[in-house]
């Protein structure tokens, strides 16, 4: 079975590059899909727009979701993921710059599985990304997806 994807929703190209570098460095998540705003992320998940025709029966292992995003922000993306029958149980990790209480609270209230603050210090950041990859790709048992074949 093909390794399930890691959906990274990140609008900042620097952060995208750093996250990909950290994942590559630790040799995890070879199958990373990047969405650069909320609309793109939802299109990928629901097989619409630019991703029309994509097999939605093959959901990513985890969504790494930034909060401040163009068009549709992270919290709204999360709410739509939770509202949709197909993606209701999809693991979503908020990966963002702030640890403002209101972000944390709204994140968990909207159904986030986890909330990770991006550290400024790169080694810490790389460590955080590595832990996320290990946890969600290796340790975590996913809920049975519709159409799961394995």
């Amino acid at each position: 079975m093909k390794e399930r994807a890691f959906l990274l929703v990140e609008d900042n190209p620097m952060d995208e590059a750093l996250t990909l570098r950290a994942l590559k460095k630790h040799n995890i998540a070879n199958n990373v899909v990047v969405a650069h705003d909320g609309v793109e992320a939802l299109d990928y998940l629901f097989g619409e727009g630019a991703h029309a025709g994509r097999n939605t029966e093959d959901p990513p292992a985890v969504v790494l979701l930034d909060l401040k995003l163009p068009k549709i922000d992270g919290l709204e993306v999360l709410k739509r993921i939770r509202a949709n029958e197909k993606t209701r149980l999809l693991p979503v990790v908020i990966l963002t710059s702030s640890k403002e209480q209101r972000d944390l609270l709204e994140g968990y209230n909207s159904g986030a599985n986890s909330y990770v603050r991006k550290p400024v210090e790169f080694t810490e950041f790389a460590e955080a990304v590595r832990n996320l990859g290990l946890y969600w790709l290796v340790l975590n048992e996913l809920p049975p997806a519709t159409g799961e074949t394995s």
Partner: protein
Amino acid sequence: MTGTRFEPAADPADTTKAILNILSDFSEEKERLQGTQRAFLNILEDSSAERQRLEAAQKAALNILEDFSDERAKLAEGQGAVLNILEDFSAEKVRLEAMQKAVLNILEDIDTEKSKVERINSEMAREIAERKQAEEALRQAKAGADAANRELEAFSYSVAHDLRAPLRSIDGFSQALLEDCAGKIDDEGKVFLNNVRESAQQMAQLIDDLLGLSRVSRAELRQTRLDLAKIARTVLARLQRDYPDRRVELVIPDKVAAVGDERLLGVVLENLLGNAWKFTSKRERACIEFGQRVETDRVVYFVRDNGAGFNMAYSQKLFGVFQRLHSANEFEGTGIGLATVQRIIHRHGGRVWTDAAVGRGATFFFTLEERV
């Protein structure tokens, strides 16, 4: 008879005739008299009836008079009563007059009082108008402050998100250079890159501290009973874990009871104990003490160290944002910690002050909600 004059007759026959005449006259007279008598009697009879009537009338009159007498007595009685009443009225009148006078006095007093009240009223009206004006000014100021607060909130939010991202790039790509292009960079270049990373990290710390300071001002105060000694031990245990090589003697009582916001007072102790930890780093035998001093009208909490201390001449500057008494080379720090401490203590209604001497350590005292 007055008309009949007796004259002696010259002839007896004449005399007899005269006598007979007289007798006849007498008889006539007698008849007249009898008639008169009868009339008299009639009259008398009439008179009797009249008399009876008169008597009855007199009797009636007497009765009436008697009644009048009664009436008079009654009237006299009534008059007496009226007089009594009038007398009473008179006394009453005197009383009423006195009362009226008193009332007039009162009215006069009321008049002066009224003018006083009117004066006060107008003063009050003016005061109310002024107060309304002040309230309006206050309302506007509050609206302004609310708007400023919202702006500050948006600003903090933006700082929290947007200011950190470029720093992450600066640090991350410097690290990438050091790792991926190590062969192309000489040792001096590596030092420079490490300086870049250090500055980025320092700035991230500064942003976090500033956000912390602004959060402290905005956070809602949730006061509960708590044990400051327990919080202090937690903070010091974390410091010991972060600096495992340090050996610091700690003096903390079992329990230090206080009432306050647990999270915010945690920030206070993190800063004060963190400072004590930092400024004793060059001591052979470092000692940090946390405790309380119960005074008559208040409880004073303190954090004492035997570290670098400072010149009390600068103690006022200590609590200002970005104020530092040591160079970054000597002791690192952002100069926000004590400003945060002061803000939290002030929000609890307490005071914070210090006592120190260069080279002889420093003590920071604080109170919570001073009872004045």
